[in-house]
C-alpha cells in the first residue's frame, strides 16, 4: 500500500554539530536525516552518536520526520549507532550502501529486536535504503521489496558516480539509467522514490532544473545538504492550481459514485477510477502542505467503505 506521507525535502544534518542540530526544529523541510556516517570524521563517531541521542531525547515536540543515517552495516560503528539512537525513538534509519536485499533484511531483523526490547510495535522503525553503487542500482527492484519497513528507495548520486568512476554533472545525463532503475524498483514495490542531493548550494537555478527533472521522472522528494534549498524544492513540488481544482473535482465525483453504489464514474467525459483517485489524493495532500487547501484525504475517500 502506497504511503501518502509527504517527503518532498529530506535535509541532512551532521550529527557532530550541536549548533546545527539545535536548529532542526526550525526548518520547514518534511524530514531530516541526522548523519552519523560521511559527515562525521572518524575521531568523532562516538561523540556524535551521544550528541544525537541527547538531542533526540530533548526534542519532544517533533514537527518533522526524523531519520538517522547510521554507518554502513559492514562497519564497526553501525551496531553502536543503533544501540545508542534507537531508544530516543527516531522514525527510521537511513541505511547507507544498501547494495542488496540481504543488507536491508539484516537491518530489519536488528530493528525487530530493538522494538521488542523497547516495547514498540514491530515495524515501528522505518528504513530508507540508499541506492548508491552500481550493484545497488542493479538490485534496486529486489531491495525495494526486501522489507515492509521500507518507506522508499533513496538514490545517492555522489557515491554512485564514484563507483562508476565518472563525474557528476549539473545536467545529470550520466544518472539517467540509474535513476530509472531506482524509480521502477520503488514504483513496482509501491514505495516512494527519493532523489539524491544537489551539491552546489549557491546554484539555485540548476537545483531548480534538476528538481523539475526528477519530479517529471517520478521522484516524490529530494535530499538536501543546506536548508537554503528547501524553498526551491517545495516550490517545484507545489501542485498547480488547476491540478488542485481537478483533484477536488475527482474526489467529489468519486464520493458521488460511491453514494450511487459504484467505484467508477465519468467526470467531463473521462473515466474516474481508483488510480485517478489515488493520484488526486496525492495532489491534495501536497496542496495541503502548501496551504492551498485544507481538506484531509483519508483511506475511506480513496477506497470507500466495506
Amino acid at each position, binding site marked *: 500500500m502506497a504511503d501518502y506521507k509527504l517527503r518532498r525535502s529530506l535535509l541532512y544534518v551532521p550529527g557532530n554539530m550541536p549548533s546545527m542540530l*539545535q*536548529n532542526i526544529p*526550525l*526548518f520547514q523541510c518534511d524530514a531530516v536525516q541526522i548523519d552519523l556516517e560521511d559527515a562525521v570524521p572518524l575521531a568523532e563517531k562516538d561523540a556524535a552518536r551521544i550528541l544525537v541521542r541527547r538531542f533526540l531525547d530533548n526534542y519532544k515536540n517533533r514537527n518533522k520526520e526524523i531519520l538517522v543515517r547510521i554507518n554502513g552495516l559492514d562497519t564497526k560503528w553501525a551496531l553502536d549507532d543503533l544501540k545508542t539512537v534507537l531508544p530516543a525513538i527516531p522514525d527510521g534509519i537511513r541505511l547507507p550502501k544498501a547494495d542488496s536485499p540481504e543488507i536491508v533484511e539484516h537491518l530489519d531483523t536488528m530493528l525487530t529486536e530493538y522494538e521488542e526490547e523497547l516495547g514498540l510495535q514491530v515495524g515501528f522503525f522505518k528504513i530508507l535504503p540508499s541506492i548508491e553503487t552500481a550493484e545497488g542500482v542493479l538490485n534496486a527492484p529486489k531491495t525495494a521489496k526486501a522489507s515492509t519497513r521500507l518507506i522508499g528507495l533513496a538514490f545517492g548520486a555522489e557515491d554512485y558516480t564514484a563507483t562508476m568512476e565518472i563525474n557528476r554533472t549539473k545536467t545529470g545525463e550520466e544518472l539517467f539509467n540509474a535513476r530509472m532503475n531506482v524509480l521502477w524498483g520503488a514504483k513496482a514495490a509501491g514505495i516512494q522514490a527519493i532523489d539524491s542531493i544537489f551539491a552546489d*548550494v*549557491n546554484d539555485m537555478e540548476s537545483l531548480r532544473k534538476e528538481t523539475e527533472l526528477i519530479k517529471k521522472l517520478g521522484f516524490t522528494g529530494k535530499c538536501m545538504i*543546506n*536548508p*537554503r534549498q528547501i524553498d526551491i524544492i517545495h516550490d517545484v513540488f507545489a501542485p498547480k492550481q488547476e491540478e488542485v481544482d481537478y483533484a477536488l473535482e475527482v474526489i467529489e465525483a468519486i464520493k458521488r459514485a460511491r453514494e450511487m453504489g459504484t467505484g467508477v464514474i465519468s467526470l467531463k467525459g473521462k473515466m474516474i477510477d481508483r488510480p485517478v483517485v489515488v493520484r488526486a489524493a496525492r495532489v491534495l495532500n501536497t496542496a495541503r502542505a502548501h496551504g492551498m487547501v485544507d481538506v484531509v484525504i483519508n483511506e475511506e475517500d480513496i477506497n470507500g467503505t466495506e
Partner: protein
Amino acid sequence: MVRNSVGRLIPETFAGKKLIPYSDPWSLQPHAERSTRAIRRITHNGSKLVGGLRDAIIASGLKDGMTISTHHSLRNGDYLLNELVKEIDALGIRDIKIASSSVHIVHAELIPYIRKGTITGFECGVNGLIAEQVSKGELDCPIIVRSHGGRARSLITGEVPVDVAFLAAPYCDEYGNFNGFYGPSACGSLGYALVDAQHAHKVVAVTDNLVPFPAVPVGIPQSVVDFVCQVPRLGDPKKIVSSTTKITTDPIGLQIAKYAAMVIEATGYVKDGFSFQTGTGGISLAVAEHVRNMMRRDKVKGSFGLGGITGYFVDMLEEGLFEALFDVQCFDLKAVQSIGRNQKHVEITAGTYANPFNCGATVNRLDCVILSATETDVNFNVNVNTESMGYLLHNTGGHCDAAAGAKVSIVVCPSIRGRLPMVRDEVTTISTPGETVGVIVTERGIAVNDNLPDLKAELIKRGAPVKDIRQLRDEIQAVTGVPKPIEFEDKVVALIEYRDGSIIDVIRQVKP
C-alpha cells in the same frame, strides 16, 4: 538616584550635568530657543586656506576646556580625528571634549591622549576599545551615548556647544564650499556634518582634495565655513565604505529575513507610497530583497527609502520602486556614486533625519523599519550598546529614532548568539524602549507588541509563526539555560541618552 519609567536607576548628575530621567518617548517638550553663534563678516574674497591641521587649530582659537567635533562617514578609514588630537596635544591644549557624530574602533589611538588629560570626555557614542576600557574602569573618561537624532538635537538646542568642528571635506575649494561625493576620500552624504556646519562656533573644512573654486554641487557652503586646511590624506578609502553589503547565506539569517518579510507584507503598507528603512548587514539586505520582490510583484511605487543608504536601495530607486532616497550616510561605493549624480537621491541632515525637536523628522514618515539588536527582552526593550560581558561597545546610531518614528519597527535578531539567549527577562542596557518596538523577529518565531493587535491578528491569519514574547523566551532558554547575570559596580561610567535628551539607562563599571 532616581528610577526612570523603564526601571533603571539614574544619578542626579553626571560629569557636572543635571540629568532628566526618561519617562516616555513622546512628551518631553523643551521651552527654549535654538542655539546661536556669533555673526561673522568675512569681506576678503581670497583663500580661506590656513595651511595644515596645526595651523587650522591655532586659527580656530581652540583653547583648554573646549569641545570639538568631526563627522563619522569616513568610519574605520578615518585619519582625521586621530591626527587632530595628536596636533592638539602637541600644542599643549588640554581638557578637550569630543562631540563627533560617532567614534569608531580606529580611534583607539586616542587612548594615550585620554590618559594624559588631552581628551577628558565624549559627548557622543563610542565604539570599540575606548568604550571597553571605560567600562572596565581602566580609563576614566565620561561618555554620553547619543542617537543620531539625539546628537543633532544636542547641537541644535545648544546643550552641547561645539566650539570647533573639523569637518572632513572630500571635495572642497579654497573658499570653503564642499561636498562628500568625489575625490579619493569620497564618502557620499555629509548628513551629520551638515548639523555641525550650522551650529558649531567655528567651522574648519579639512580636505585632501582641494579643487578650483567652485566645488559643486555645494553640500556645505562657503557662508558657514571659517577656514580651510589641507592634509595629505583624510582616510583609507578601503575602510571608508566597508560595511557588509552582501545578502547573508546563513540559513538562520535567511529564515529571520523571510519572517520579517512576512511581517512587512502583513502590515498592509506595501502599496503605493510605501516608505522603508533598513541598515546594512546580511539579514537586513535579505529583507530588502524580499521587499523588492514584493514591490515588483504588486507593481508598487514607494515614496522613499531612508537612512544609511546601500547599493540595494540605489538599485530600487533606479528601478523606479521608490520616488526618492533620503540619505544621511552612504554605506557603500554604489551609494556614493549615486548621490553624486541622481537628484532623487537626496542628502539630508541628521537633524532632518531624526531630531525629535523640530517640525517633523523624516523618520516620522516611515512605514516600516528593520532594526537589529544585540539582545531584546520580554518588554520589547532592545539593547544595541553593550555586549555579553556588559561592556559598552556600540553606538545607538539611528536605532531609537527610527523605532520611535516608524509606524511599525521590526527588530531582527537571532534567538541564540554563541550560547546566549537573545530574548531575556531584562536587557543589560536599554537603548530603545519597548513601547517603540513593534515586532521582534527571530528564527524561532515572531513576537508582536500588544500595541499592534491588528498586525498580530493578521499574521496569525496568514499562518505566520506568531508567539508570545514570553513563550519565545522560554523556548530559547530551554536550549541555552539562563545565563548568570553580569555583575556591575555602582560607579556610572557612561550614559545612554534617549533621543529627547532624557536618560534611559546608564552604563556601570563591570566588576572584574
